């Protein structure tokens, strides 16, 4: 009896995904009877590629997806290479807990508020330092290249990968291996990168792919931080799905399929990168050089990781302050009037007692 359990469990998991996939593939080729789609055709794909910003959209999606994953992986690796076996490193988990527990969209809003021209950093330094009485004309979030979007993704992804690396390290005798590598004359950073990383990488491969897929397809963070004209592919699909013009449902479904294809393509690319990276590492090792050329770079990048963590925590503090602000105008560093009304009214709503306050759009 028990041997039926694995296929059964699998099918319980996969059936809804399969149904969803079929429900996307059919409209992507024009079949969706409820809104009059009876013809199988490639017309939705024509419509998708006729969108005048499609190439910018694709470039933005791929650059940010690969860029955010690479950067967060490099930042997390550098941080672990530097910090392993240090006592402060153990306390790291305490600081990452809020970063991992806060929803991505909330961190994105907090980050946007931090770096906007009218944001918290500008407010803290104006006008006494910058001389700004009004928000300056600067482009910080929603920039054309998606840099703010990428940075916003790093805030969640870097601590996540660090935690994954710490968990994976506990499966490997790190202390003994680093000690023996060091006895052969390798520096601590090099010892970790050369000996420990290749052994824990197979365990963090799936989390890395998750980060890759997430960066390529995230919607909420993209709406807040990515450019909107044209937006990343995920946002474009969301817009079309929600459009009052139901005919856009077809190109939206095509966009989602393209999105899935991009994720597969990116994972394949990443896998090729892994193989190339492993070859390069082995080739370098064979030289037997003991010089730690990487160490200064790693120190630099590792401090970048700490900055990422601080920015993430500040983003959370920023939205926490907004939740208590009644009025907070530029250039005040803190709200000018405080209130707990937002909290109390929402708490009351959840108790079901109060009437719904509907904001008019």
């Amino acid at each position, binding site marked *: 009896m028990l041997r039926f359990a694995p296929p059964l469990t699998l099918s319980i998991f996969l059936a809804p995904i399969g149904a969803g996939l079929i429900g996307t593939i059919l409209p992507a080729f024009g079949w969706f009877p409820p809104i009059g789609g009876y013809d199988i055709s490639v017309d939705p794909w024509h419509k998708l590629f006729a*969108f*005048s*910003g499609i190439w*910018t959209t694709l470039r933005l999606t791929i650059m940010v997806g690969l860029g955010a994953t690479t950067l967060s992986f490099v930042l997390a690796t550098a941080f672990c290479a530097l910090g392993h076996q240090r006592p402060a490193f153990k306390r790291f988990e305490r600081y990452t807990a809020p970063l991992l527990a806060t929803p991505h969209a909330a961190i994105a809003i907090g980050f946007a508020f931090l770096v*906007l*021209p*009218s944001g918290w950093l500008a407010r803290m330094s104006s006008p006494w330092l910058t001389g700004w009485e*009004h*928000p300056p004309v600067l*482009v910080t979030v*929603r920039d*054309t290249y998606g840099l703010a979007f990428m940075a916003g993704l790093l805030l969640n992804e870097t601590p996540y990968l660090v935690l994954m690396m710490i968990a994976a390290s506990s499966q490997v005798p790190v202390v003994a291996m680093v000690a023996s590598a060091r006895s052969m004359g390798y520096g601590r950073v090099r010892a970790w990168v050369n000996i420990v990383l290749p052994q824990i990488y197979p365990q963090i491969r799936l989390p890395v792919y998750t980060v890759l897929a997430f960066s390529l397809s995230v919607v909420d963070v993209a*709406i*807040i931080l990515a*450019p*909107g*004209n*044209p937006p990343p592919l995920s946002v474009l699909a969301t817009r079309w799905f929600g459009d009052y*013009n139901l005919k856009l449902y077809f190109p939206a479904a095509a966009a989602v399929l393209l999105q899935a294809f991009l994720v597969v393509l990116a994972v394949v690319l990443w896998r090729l990168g892994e193989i190339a990276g492993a070859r390069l590492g082995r080739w370098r090792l064979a030289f037997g050089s003991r010089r730690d050329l990487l160490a200064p770079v790693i120190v630099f990048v590792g401090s970048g990781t700490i900055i990422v963590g601080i920015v993430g925590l500040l983003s959370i503090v920023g939205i926490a302050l907004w939740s208590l602000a*009644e*009025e907070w*105008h*530029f250039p005040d560093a803190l709200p000018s009037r405080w*209130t707990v009304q937002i909290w109390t009214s929402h708490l009351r709503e959840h108790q079901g007692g109060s009437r719904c306050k*509907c*904001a*008019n*759009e």
Partner: protein
Amino acid sequence: LAPDPTVLQKPATKEIFATATAPLRAWYDALRPTQRRHGQEYPESGPAQRQLLNDGEIDLSVSFNPAEAALSIANKLLPETARVFVLDRGTIGNTSFVAIPYNATNKEGAMLVANFLLEPATQARAQDPKHLGSFTVLDPAKLAPEDRARFAQLSENKAMPSPEDLGKILLEPHSSWMTQITAEWEKRYVR
């Protein structure tokens, strides 16, 4: 901006569309570089634009609801100094509609609700920023004095325009204009 505004009431055909929107395009091309971020990037939604106004990043924002300023002030989303203005030569008077689907099960009940929504007392309460902040669809000049007084009282709020403040009300163009202008905009300016 259209050379002959009457064509806007009819469906937009290809030939009429090109000539009727040529001045609009020229005007917009001149205006666009002067906008925030040179008109290359826009806030995602109405609320996002209102937040930019609240932060002082922009000087004015557009709303379909004349009561938006009063409503936002009441909800602490804009400073108390926010005010409403309309265009000198008239503004399109688009307003809320209530429709009953053709296959509705309880048409009579739906009509009853629609009538209730149109009652002056309901409309005045709905316009009150403390409640819904949705500007009335009624013309107070045609109402009984006691109902008119309800709306006059609401307009004592400096951020709430009175119906006279809204100036000349223009007809909404045939809906095909909106979709075609949007498509044309996307074709020309999304890169």
